[in-house]
């Protein structure tokens, strides 16, 4: 440990500020509160702060960040913006360092978020011990008042002097700006220890349910009345998520400049307490009731992320509790309330806490990372209007490589200025082109309907987990499609038809609202010519003047009309949300085992890669863990078929 006397410390900070290669940020006062902001002078730095309004996550995942710059006057022109110069952040408290490490685990897992990694590698962290403890902080309870890594330098304000701990070589190099650096004495060490102990002691707020029981506590009390009682007071203002250092959800929107020729794709903070977080273009809202949104936040912190990444996603900073106006966002109060009212025995989950699994952002190489949000150019080969609302597209990637998708996967289709949308790949795997069918629903899909052969679109993907065509080999298959569900189903169905000898009996039931909405009419007609498949069609109603030879009624009504062995048939279901409830009920009456039912689900999506948070269905990311699921795996997911 090294020591700088206060005056030398100030000179050190001023030297950092004066270094033109660095953007020096530190904690400053804002009214009675504190914020991280650019420093103009060492005198502004407040190492005695209790907590900042926003956490330092704003430097890694800024409130607003341009992720793509595009030029609409070109067929396809996208570039990623320049990143800011190197930054040093002075005064990051241990709990916020723990949170940054959680962010690392989140953004640097299987899909490396390039923009995040760039900022992360470009930022030096000077941690600092907590001198003043905020009244709502509970990092003592969460054991996040002390960190062993995750900083480049770590300082402690010891009154007339400041102690330094070196975390990384890069941190050590910063010390070239420090004059009169001395070795510490045992007294300094003792003083530091006392400060730490005192802060950690003060930051204990009587959390009865230790972090390692949160998981079980939340799981067993999902239906507790406590959720509703508390959420009745909720303003749905989003504050608790926005100010949280371990909330990472974001939205993406296109903004066009006044010239109408260029624009930007902008990523911005979003949060699950906001109603619009789960709304889709049909107006459906997956978490309409405030209680569901309120509950989701706690469950994500104590259950879903722990399951996924191994740590409790709360570091006890107390920002949510101090900034929630009705004072209902405090994890201590919530967990204690659940704990006290819980009728169950709550199991401990080892020594799980808020410290993230060991992942070191600085060791990640930028080479080889992909810009998750940068679409690749592709060309429309064929565009045909197939019904009043749907258009068919055949698309080829401009690198002339096959998309490489599995049946049931989707792509993010992108038009600069109109945004992006998840669209299922409708063609079977293989081939140099792929097919989509797009229904007019909103900004992007309306624009797509104006496009023609030769036009450029952007494509990201393929994404998600599709159907496992290998595992289905030799099995009897019953396909049931409702409405647009035929689109993703077709990728598997046509694959099965192309490899017909590999599969057992094949039956397909397809229903839509009216005869005019039926898709792939030629292919459906061809099904009738084949002896090796059985098919039945139905429409909800047939208006006067249209001709229809199939059944009338919902698609579930077709199930009793086909012969299949319920115990030895895999049933593949794809349709709108209401469809599942009824069809699954009908299948269960026939005692089809859960594991023989395969579904493909829909949720609001933005990123497609398990980062933006929109598609979460309890702890499951539909974009990544799905959209195809085995019914057995998700039937107990409380949000799946709500």
């Amino acid at each position, binding site marked *: 440990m090294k020591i700088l006397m206060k005056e030398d410390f100030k000179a050190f900070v001023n030297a950092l500020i004066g270094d033109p290669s660095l953007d020096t940020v530190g904690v400053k006062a*804002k*009214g*009675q*509160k504190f*914020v991280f902001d650019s420093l103009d002078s060492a005198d502004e730095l407040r190492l005695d702060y209790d907590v900042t*309004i*926003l956490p330092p996550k*704003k430097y890694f995942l800024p*409130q*607003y960040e341009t992720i793509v710059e595009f030029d609409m006057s070109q067929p396809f022109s996208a570039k990623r913006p320049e990143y800011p110069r190197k930054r040093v952040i002075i005064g990051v408290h241990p709990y916020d360092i723990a949170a940054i490490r959680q962010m690392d685990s989140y953004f640097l897992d299987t899909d490396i978020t390039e923009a995040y990694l760039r900022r992360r590698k470009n930022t030096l962290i000077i941690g600092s011990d907590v001198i003043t403890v905020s009244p709502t902080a509970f990092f003592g309870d969460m054991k996040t008042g002390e960190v062993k890594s995750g900083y480049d330098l770590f300082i402690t304000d010891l009154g007339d002097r400041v102690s330094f701990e070196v975390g990384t070589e890069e941190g050590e190099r910063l010390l070239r700006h420090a004059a009169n650096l001395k070795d510490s004495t045992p007294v300094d060490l003792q003083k530091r220890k006392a400060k730490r102990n005192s802060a950690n002691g003060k930051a204990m707020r009587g959390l009865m349910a230790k972090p390692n029981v949160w998981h079980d506590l939340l799981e067993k009390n999902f239906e507790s009345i406590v959720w509703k009682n508390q959420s*009745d*007071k*909720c*303003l*749905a*203002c*989003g*504050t608790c998520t*926005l*100010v949280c250092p371990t909330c990472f959800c974001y939205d993406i*929107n296109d*903004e*066009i*400049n*006044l*010239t*109408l020729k260029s624009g930007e794709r902008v990523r*911005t*903070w979003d*949060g699950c307490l*906001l*109603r*619009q977080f789960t709304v889709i273009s049909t107006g459906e809202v997956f978490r309409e009731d*405030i209680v569901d949104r309120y509950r989701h936040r706690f469950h994500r912190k104590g259950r879903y992320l722990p399951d996924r990444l191994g740590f409790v996603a709360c570091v006890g900073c107390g920002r949510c509790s*101090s*900034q929630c*106006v*009705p004072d209902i966002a405090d994890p201590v109060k919530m967990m204690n309330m659940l704990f006290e009212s819980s009728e169950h025995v709550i199991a401990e989950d080892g020594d799980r806490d808020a410290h993230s699994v060991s992942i070191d952002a600085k060791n990640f190489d930028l080479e080889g990372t992909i810009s998750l949000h940068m679409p690749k150019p592709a060309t429309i080969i064929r565009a045909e209007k197939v019904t009043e609302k749907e258009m068919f597209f055949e698309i080829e990637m401009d690198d002339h490589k096959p998309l490489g998708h599995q049946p049931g996967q989707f792509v993010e289709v992108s038009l600069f*200025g*109109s945004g992006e949308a998840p669209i299922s790949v409708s063609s079977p795997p293989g081939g140099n082109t792929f097919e989509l069918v797009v229904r007019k629903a*909103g*900004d992007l899909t*309306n*624009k797509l309907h104006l496009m023609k052969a030769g036009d450029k679109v952007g494509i990201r993907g393929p994404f998600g987990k599709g159907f496992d065509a290998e595992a289905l080999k030799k099995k009897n298959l019953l396909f049931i499609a409702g409405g647009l569900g035929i689109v993703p189903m077709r990728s598997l169905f046509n694959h099965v038809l192309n490899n017909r000898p590999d599969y057992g009996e094949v039956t397909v039931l397809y229903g839509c609202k009216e005869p005019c909405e039926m898709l792939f009419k030629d292919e459906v007609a061809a099904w009738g010519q084949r002896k090796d498949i059985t098919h039945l069609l139905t429409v909800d109603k047939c208006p006067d003047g249209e001709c229809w030879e199939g059944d009338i009624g919902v698609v579930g009504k077709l199930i009793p009309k086909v012969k299949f062995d319920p115990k030895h048939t895999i049933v593949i279901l794809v349709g709108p949300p209401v469809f599942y409830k009824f069809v699954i009920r009908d299948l269960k009456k026939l005692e089809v085992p859960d594991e023989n039912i395969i579904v493909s689900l829909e949720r609001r999506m933005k990123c497609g890669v398990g980062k933006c948070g929109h598609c979460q269905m309890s702890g499951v990311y539909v974009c990544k863990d799905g959209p195809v699921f085995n019914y057995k795996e998700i039937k107990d997911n409380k949000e799946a078929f709500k």
Partner: protein
Amino acid sequence: MKPRVAFFDFASCEGCQLSVANLEESLVDVLKLIDIVAFREVMKEHSDQYDIAIVEGSITRPMDEERLKKIRANANILIALGACAHLGGVQRMANQWTPEENKKEVYGIANPADIADSNRFFEKPRQKALDEVVKVDYTIPGCPINKEEFAKVLIALLTGRKPPIPDYPVCVECKKKENVCMFTIGKFCMGPLARAGCGAPCPTAGNECEACRGYVDHPHEKAQTDVLEKYGLTVDDIMRRKTMFTYRYVEKPKDGA
């Protein structure tokens, strides 16, 4: 062909139109995209041939209603501009009382002749928002409107997209700006109910938000009332805050209306 745009005003301070006129350098760009055929703030001549009508002000008198209906009939797209057109404006507060009470309050009762209903300008004025009279396609809220948002809406219309008016509360933008929350410094704020899009200029400047942009689609009003009470506002105070710009949401028809 460039879309023809016409501006109209009813009962208002014309502040919103002024905001548009003040788009300044960017106005030049806007002008390249559209033909403005009527705009009293910046030009004298005007034409009745237009595609988009942008209408400011609240509807007060029967003659206003007739005029608005004509504008609606002429326009393909009608946009309500600002709080007066969107909600009825601050002047809507007057709807809490009968026209007689309002006249007495304003002119006193010294001269009973003045409060007789003989003067046609005093024909039982009741403030209405545009959509209480005609169909409104889009609304640009605010008192006054935010000019960047105005430009965004125009761009969206010209590029065939939905105008990007958010449906989340002002708190979201306020938090992103890292403001000290009004509630923590002994002030009160309607931000949790108010529709964002303005960028939270009021709390950013240390002032309470008065929800001049109206509420989000599903405001949690009860929770907000509880909060205002908890922070020490009386029922009357709460009512006053809820009537400033947003009397529309609580208005009950009055005698004499």
